[in-house]
């Protein structure tokens, strides 16, 4: 039985990774999960310098999901390279580094710094506010997205995965822009912008007022977008958004994802990744599937 998949020339032992920001750098979840079993670990978004993030409350539970406005708190690229990458190198798994920034220069700086590091893929989070463009996210304007993709691609030594925001009218326009900019792969979806109000205190549930909705509540939207993008561009896709079990993971792959990421589900059950991998194997056995690649995008 073959579970290995390939994205931009990188071979993963299985198609399961974790969604950036839900797993830290793996150090905390390593008490629960044998990281050697994961296809890859995707690290929390990292910028050129430490970011303090947003005030609290940073999260709120919603029906079948949660909202977060952590604000990309991160210790900066030096700490990632000095502490987190060496930690992950102890394990037999691939490393995907998620990168964030407020300007093109920020992204390029991080990507250049990662050039000498032994990491496998760079996932570029374009949902951060673009300070120069007046606060519009790079991920919401196709021209800005194509430009940032080009700039990052020109300096990157590793293949780049552009992580798309679902907060757009037509996701395929964004996917095509990233493809035109030279992306090697796409990942989707990031969180959907939402809001929650505490009616007793007459206040927003989050200090940031709005937050990103994740978890099972967003899964149908994510599956639809993965399907649309898979049919609009030729790039391989890392699919995510509410995956809680192997059935969900298979659904994303049938829609067109080559890999899947487990995010919010880790908070409910830290063993989710391992359960998904085991469940996939069982599903393949039961259905007589020899190679997991057979099912990628099999539903047309």
């Amino acid at each position, binding site marked *: 039985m073959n579970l290995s998949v390939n994205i931009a020339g990188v071979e993963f032992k299985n198609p399961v990774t974790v969604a950036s*920001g*839900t*797993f*830290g750098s793996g150090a*905390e*979840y390593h*008490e*629960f999960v044998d990281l050697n079993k994961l296809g890859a670990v995707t690290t*929390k978004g990292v910028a050129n310098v*430490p*970011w*303090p*993030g947003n005030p*609290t*409350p*940073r*999260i*709120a*539970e919603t*029906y*079948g*999901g*949660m909202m*977060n406005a*952590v604000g990309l*708190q991160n*210790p*900066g690229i030096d*700490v990632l390279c000095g502490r987190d990458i060496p930690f992950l190198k102890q394990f037999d798994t691939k490393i995907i580094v998620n990168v964030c920034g407020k300007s093109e220069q920020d992204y390029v700086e991080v990507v250049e710094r990662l050039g000498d590091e032994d990491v496998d893929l760079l996932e570029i989070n374009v949902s951060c506010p673009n300070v120069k463009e007046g606060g519009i996210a790079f991920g919401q304007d196709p021209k800005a997205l194509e430009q940032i993709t080009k700039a990052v691609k020109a300096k990157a030594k590793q293949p780049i995965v552009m992580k798309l925001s679902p907060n757009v009218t037509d996701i395929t326009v964004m996917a095509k822009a990233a493809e035109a900019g030279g992306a090697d792969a796409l990942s989707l979806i990031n969180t959907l912008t939402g809001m929650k109000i505490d009616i007793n205190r007459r206040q927003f549930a989050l200090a940031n007022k709005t937050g990103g909705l994740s*978890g*099972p509540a967003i899964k149908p939207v994510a599956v639809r977008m993965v399907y649309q993008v898979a049919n609009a561009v030729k790039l391989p896709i890392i699919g995510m958004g509410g995956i*809680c079990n192997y059935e969900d993971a298979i659904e994303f792959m049938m829609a067109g994802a080559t890999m899947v990421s487990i995010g*919010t*589900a*880790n*908070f*409910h*059950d*830290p*063993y989710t990744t391992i359960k998904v991998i085991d469940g996939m194997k069982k599903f393949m056995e039961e259905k007589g599937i020899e190679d997991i690649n057979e099912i990628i995008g099999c539903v047309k």
Partner: protein
Amino acid sequence: MSAVKLTAKVRSQKKLASDIYSLILYVPEIADQAKAGQFVSLYSKDGANLLPRPISLCEIDHEEGTIRLVYRVVGKGTEEFSHLEEGDCVEVMGPLGNGFTLKDKRAILIGGGIGIPPMLELAKELNCEKNIVLGFRDETFLLEDLEPRGEIYIASEDGKTGVQGNVLDAIREYEIKGDIIYACGPTPMLRAIKEYAFANHMEAQLSLEEKMACGIGACLACVCKSTEVDDHSHVKNKRICKDGPVFDAGEVEF
């Protein structure tokens, strides 16, 4: 030693006051490693409520392999837990957080409202002179458990038990003395205690609270401001679930 997540069996559940429950879980894997000031995450069976509910350890019985949780029903999760009965199962992760650092000094233990439960295990573990100050809204709970563990002083908002007012009113009224404060309770109470401790040159360990998602230090949901740049985050933020919930008063700004 590390945290685990597993299915625990309910030993018993008892109602202590109108909305306050005491739940005893059989989980030797957690009880064996746990200490005062740490907490566990409890999980709802309803998939609509994804996130864990952090609850402090009120008592730990290493011999029996049980932990006791005392909690107030405030929403969907705690409402569900209040229906658990002997023999039922519940998903639990722990022990989580750092816990109190026990010092051999004259201690003042302060619990406000639903911050009282962790003071019971702390009082059991501390072998020194203990003054225990409790703040209640109206109804009291856990008094019979705490009475044998130290000198008890009470403040209540309605004034029906002890001093009318808050825990600091009780401390002033009864002229309670000590060298170290251990406290858990609502944020405004902790803020006032921090000021009181500084003014009186006392050491204080405060147990803080914030909304949590992972409970193990990975997601950065539950931070509080720290006075110094933190070793892990490299910014002035500490994770309440991992670096806390107990902090030295001077370490944090809230």
